[in-house]
């Protein structure tokens, strides 16, 4: 996978996770791992740069809140721009993966 595709994929997973409601970085990794039934494991080192990039692009916004276990954590919320981007990316991804799946089925 090229870097751009990897970045797009990571963005998509983050945005999709946040569409369920505000969450912190650790929560996002946990969700992706459990939702993919352990198939996807986020590179944690690249998660935070991606989060901050999305924040700067105003797709998401981060705020310090107290977490369920009483710790201070930075929670990210999906913005309007992020929601639009999620829809775009999601449809692109679905058509791309459907296309790829068909090509694979043919052989």
């Amino acid at each position, binding site marked *: 996978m090229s870097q751009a595709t990897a970045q797009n994929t990571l963005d998509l997973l983050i945005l999709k996770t946040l569409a369920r409601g505000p969450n*912190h970085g*650790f929560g996002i990794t946990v969700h992706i791992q459990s939702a993919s039934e352990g198939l996807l494991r986020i*590179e944690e*080192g*690249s998660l935070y740069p991606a989060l*901050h990039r999305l924040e700067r692009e105003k797709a998401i916004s981060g705020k310090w809140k107290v977490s369920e276990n009483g710790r201070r954590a*930075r929670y990210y919320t999906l913005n309007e721009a992020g929601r639009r981007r999620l829809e775009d990316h999601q449809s692109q991804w679905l058509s791309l993966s459907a296309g790829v799946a068909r090509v694979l089925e043919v052989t």
Partner: protein
Amino acid sequence: MKEWLSRRRARDLDRDLRDEMQFHLEMRASAFEQEGMTARESAAAAHKRFGSTSIAHEDARRMHIGAAVSLLGTAGRELCFAVRSLRRAPAFTATAVLALTLGLGGACAVFTVADRILFRGLPYAQSGRLAAVGVRAPIADHAFLLGGDYSEWKEERSAWEGITATRDAYDCDLTENHPVRLTCGGVAASFLPLFGVEPVAGRNFRPEEDRPGAPGAVILSYALWRERYGGDPGIAGRQVRLNGETVPIVGVLPAGFEFPTLASVDILVPLRLDEAVERKRQAVSMVTAFGRLKPGRSIDQARAALGPYFDHFLTTISPQFKKEVWLEVTPLDELMRRNARVAGWVLLGALAAVLGIAWTNVANLWLARAASRSHETAIRTALGAGKGRLLLHHAAELTLVCGCGWAGGLCLAGFLLAVFRQTAPAWTIDLRQVSVDARILFFSAAVLIASVVAFSLLPRGSRIASRRMRLRGVLVAAQLAMSVFLLASAGLLLRTVRELSGIPVGVRTSGVTTVSAVLGLPRYRTAADRFGFVERLESGLHRLPGVSAAAVADELPPLTAGPGFMYGSISVDGRPPASQGPGGRVNERHITSEYFRALGIPLLRGRPFAAAEIDAAEGVCILSDRLARRLFPGNDPLGHTVKPTGWPKTYKVVGVAADAKNAGLLAEDVPEFYIPYDSKQGAPRFVSAVVQSTVKPSVVARLVADEIRAVDPALPATAGPFSDRIARLNARPRFHAALLSLFAGIGVLLAALGIYGVLAFLVSQRSREIGVRMALGATRARIAGWILACVMRWTAAGLALGAVGALLAAREFRSMLYGVKPADPRTFLEVLLLLAAVSVLAAYLPARRAATLDPAVTLRHD
């Protein structure tokens, strides 16, 4: 403000990022713990899973902050980091800063001096078009014009824009409430406009003030205006008393003004040449003339234009005189700087050498540092520091080191210049105004920026240790080569000074005090007035404590006294002079009877003047040995009579005195014609007293000055030890030798430091190899020998190269040497031996450390 905000934001961001990732790690660790890991294991596993927090931090950070701001922040952080890492390497930091301070300080100071000598124009508008103009003859050591000729020559307009005249600077007295001895210079009203010099206050002389009998007017030097009159802007029109006359101040000279003969002049007075009388040769005065060429005219064209005037001059003089005169037209720049030019280039060479040694030293230290932390560099690279980041870090360290060296160097330069100002012989070049200026700041900053760039690009990355070592060996050899040049130059000049000091001056200087004054006041108008003063002073001096001899003369060696007369004009025993041309100049000196005893000049024949012969009707004289041999070859001159043409008296020779230096150290002595003071005509305005005393010179100087004050309270006088006057004879070579010795010292110190540094590093780098060799049976002597062989190879290469270079350079400054050949084998041998000894000495400590290494320890290490 904006920057502060963004920096603040950056700080908040950094904290947020850290907290955020910390939270993540803790959550992950607690998740691991729930899976059954211990607290320690889970924390480690969490870190492992996350990867590099610092890379993630840096990447996330970059998302927020623009690249430029990020770079700035990075540079700031690198600078802080550099401070910390330099503090951990105090030896490197101190040595590098010291090397730069010494090198740069010395270089800046010398550059300031050399710059003034070599590159700065004269302080006149378009000075390239100014030239000294006149007739050269054996009677004077510079070109002159007779007043009448000047009034004709200045009309030349085909190649010359104008020709102006000055009179030699002379002592004059400001006789106000605090009388002081000053130097006055006479100039024509056309002088300042022709040289393009504008008074900073007031005005130039008016043409009517430059006429004979015109009321006086003076222009003050800037320094005198500031010191004595507090820089009063309304000074013009104020009256001063000069030599007892009241004259108005009309203007003030600008700060950088130099009199074209380099005399330091305090006051300008109008020349007031009586041109009508001079043209008829009813009065003859000598002036020093300067002209300005018309734009586009060459010096040869200008000389040719004066040809007819010179030919006319030749028709007005006696035929025997014609053979010994020639026309001189010399560019002013050449005239004023020609003595200093070679010295300037030598100093500049020394500057380059010192700077080069300092530079190679730092380069070497830097290479050593880069090599010794290849480990650290590897770790930082592994942790994600990019190539640019590492370069930035190195540049930050270098900037800090060079910046400190720069600041230190400028302080040192300021200090050295203050020393130069005190010690430089005044007439070499005017150093009174030198200081660290904008050009020096620029020069040194340029050197430093170039250094930082060059050092950063040094091949630190070279993996091959032996190649790196070879580069450093080359640097050490280069340092030694430059040291050879410095030491050899200094050695040759020191030998010159020693040779010069060894020249017999012909007078005794120890325990001799002199005092001089000028009888310029109206009350000394007649010879009888001046004679009375001399008599009163002489008897007063004899009453001082501890005086064994005291005398008065118009001038003392090493200077000649009056204008003198031509040898060819002397008639012996009434016979007219043999007409073999003017035969050069003879100096007449008025003295009192104890003159020879006070100065320790031996009388070879005859006797000193008797008291009765002073001011007697019948003339007596004493000849210098040189004059006696020439006038009376093979005969006893005693009892014969001599008479210079035009003199009223005939003089009987009563003695012959040994020669004493009176025309500088190297020039041939001028024959001396000693005559007693005479109240009719022979009592010059210049008075110098000389006292031989057993009392401390400083005390005698004060007593002698008091004695003059007792005779005339309004007369300013300067007193001091006679040795000062003699020391002035070789002040210039001494100054040059002192400067070069200073640089040679700095250079050798730096070179020794360099060798030591490289070897110490070599030993610590190769301690394992040394350990292995020892374990395999190498003896301690063998190891030490290996280190020394290393040094000797570099040393031999450096010394050979340096010797060749120094030989070539010394040939170029031959003119500064006396009594020693440029390729003086003794000097060169001494220099080479000294440097070889220095390099062995510098190698001694590292070699000993290598020899005493314990193989068991070095091999177990790491």
